[in-house]
């Protein structure tokens, strides 16, 4: 036993030929966020606080599809969503359709703690943000040149592009069979457990490139992209529509509870049951285990455990 933490910056068709200028900043961001999370756990911050502050850091980084750096809707706007869940109480909070809130994950936490509801969206969520006095900025703050370019490319190809690390200059990525060439990246997340088995999960995203205005993905749906209970905490990433139908996050916990599988077995089973190229997840258990399986080409990820193990990775 002991604390454990894992975080991700999205799973998808991350090309093995990803050039250093695109790979290194992301690895650095993962390392930085991992350090922050580990420091917080060492300082005995509750896991709910830890996952929130790590996801805030990931949202603030322009390199991942959440907060600043979010991919754009078909109208060129940003609509962000996030979700947080506490394993002990199974209290949760979720938000969707945010366009001015700097840290969606913190607003999700406020929904959980300051309202009788679990999930607020669009205008109602934005109004709540103002009532709560959270930091809001002009929507343009979140929009990066890369994402403007990605939207242009997606429109040209007339597809909803889930990939956001598709090279902009026309370099072809590794082809994975069974996909239409759309790779699947998006979302940031963090799961953590302390030495007493308290668990928490948090996920945040800008969604899909060129998504329809108003489209909601798996991230804010409890049991799909985010879940925590006394057994484990899970954050998923990949093709939202697949993650929803497979209730991925809930299923990891359900397999542990109802079938007695270990964390690793449950997580591997769930990922294997989803079509290849569709999903990845990070998970920690009450006993401090950690696992980060994915069936995509890669997943930006990092983890650490109290016994000194740590890892940062993209591919297998």
């Amino acid at each position: 036993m002991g604390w454990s933490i894992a975080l991700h910056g999205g799973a998808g068709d991350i090309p093995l030929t990803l050039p250093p200028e695109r790979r290194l900043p992301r690895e650095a961001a993962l390392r930085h966020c991992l350090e922050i999370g580990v420091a917080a756990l060492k300082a005995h911050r509750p896991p709910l606080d830890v996952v929130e502050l790590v996801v805030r850091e990931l949202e603030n980084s322009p390199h991942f599809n959440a907060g600043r750096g979010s991919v754009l809707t078909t109208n060129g706007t940003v609509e962000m969503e996030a979700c947080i869940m506490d394993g002990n109480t199974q209290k949760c909070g979720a938000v969707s359709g945010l366009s001015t809130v700097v840290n969606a994950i913190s607003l999700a936490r406020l929904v959980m703690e300051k309202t009788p509801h679990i999930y607020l969206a669009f205008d109602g969520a934005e109004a709540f943000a103002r009532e709560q006095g959270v930091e809001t900025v002009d929507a343009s703050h979140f929009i990066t040149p890369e994402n403007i370019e990605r939207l242009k490319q997606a429109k040209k190809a007339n597809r909803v592009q889930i990939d956001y690390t598709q090279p902009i200059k026309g370099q072809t990525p590794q082809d994975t069979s069974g996909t239409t060439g759309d790779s699947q990246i998006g979302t940031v997340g963090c799961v953590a457990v302390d030495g007493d088995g308290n668990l928490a999960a948090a996920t945040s995203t800008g969604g899909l490139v060129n998504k329809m205005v108003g489209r909601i993905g798996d991230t804010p749906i409890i049991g799909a992209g985010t879940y925590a209970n006394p057994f484990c905490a899970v954050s998923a990433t990949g093709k939202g529509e697949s993650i929803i139908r497979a209730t991925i996050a809930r299923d990891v916990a359900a397999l542990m509870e109802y079938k007695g599988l270990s964390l690793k077995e449950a997580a591997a089973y769930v990922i294997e049951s989803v079509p290849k190229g569709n999903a990845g997840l990070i998970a920690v258990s009450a006993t401090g285990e950690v696992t980060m399986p994915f069936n995509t080409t890669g997943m930006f990820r990092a983890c650490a455990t109290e016994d000194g193990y740590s890892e940062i990775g993209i591919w297998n």
Partner: protein
Amino acid sequence: MGGWAIAIHGGAGVDPNLPEERQEEAKRVLARCLQIGIDALRASVRAVDVVEIVVRELETDPVFNSGRGSALTRKGTVEMEASIMDGRGRRCGAVSGLTTVKNPVSLARLVMEKSPHSYLAFDGAEDFAREQGVEVVDNSYFITEENVGMLKLAKEANSIMFDYRVPLPVIDGCSGSAGSIVATVDDVLQMNGLPISIYAPETVGCVVVDTNGWCAAATSTGGLMNKMNGRIGDSPLIGSGTYACNLCAISCTGEGEAIIRSTLARDVAAVMEYKGLGLQEAVDFVINERLDEGKAGLIAVSRNGEVGYGFNTNGMFRGCATEDGFMEVGIWE
């Protein structure tokens, strides 16, 4: 075993003082909608089509909290949501924040079939509705006089709930006038923090297994009386309010937050799949073990033609039927 089966609900958490005429009216609507589903199943209509047809009927009738007759937001408007899931392939569609779409469940179906996504909400969903040419009406169409009165009472109840001894308005169902009784808060049956006399049982739903053994589920609601604008409940959330797979189909109703936290619909299927429980066993297990302090009910069917339901609330408007001729409509235990 085998054959088709259907169950419907009109919400869980019923006022024990609901006047007899209202109970009869509710049962008549349930029987009528159930019969529509039965007739479709006898004509070999597919499960996913049957649940849509039946929920459309429940939405259109103002008696239950969905479509016309939806509970009101704190601003006095209607924001509706719905979801549908086809157990065959586990395809799904969901919508939230609808204000003009006459039949939310049908828009959810179109999201599933005509968009690259699974869930659309608010302005984006309304735009999609217009693109698809579904029937839209003014928001006022969905608002009933009774719910305007209920909203007022809910606002009063919410503001006085912190007193330990409060006068409780009670609605006289026939004339709409309000009497009052004095009771302590502890004596009061509550759902979602509201006295049960004011609470609008949330949601309508239908689950079906067709003659081919395919299951489907659909759920639709106006949501919680006096909810914050933008509040999303369990009904449009796959795995919480609605779920269908090749084993079974489930639709839930009750305290949305409790249903979400316990992923109630998915859990019925999960204990069948992972623990090998039968349908009613699974239903009983999740109702008894998964809700903690929460109050909810659900209906379920299995691919073997079984039908089941359970609730830990005070009553649930429901109806069910199976191919061998069994049919029942009920409210209480």
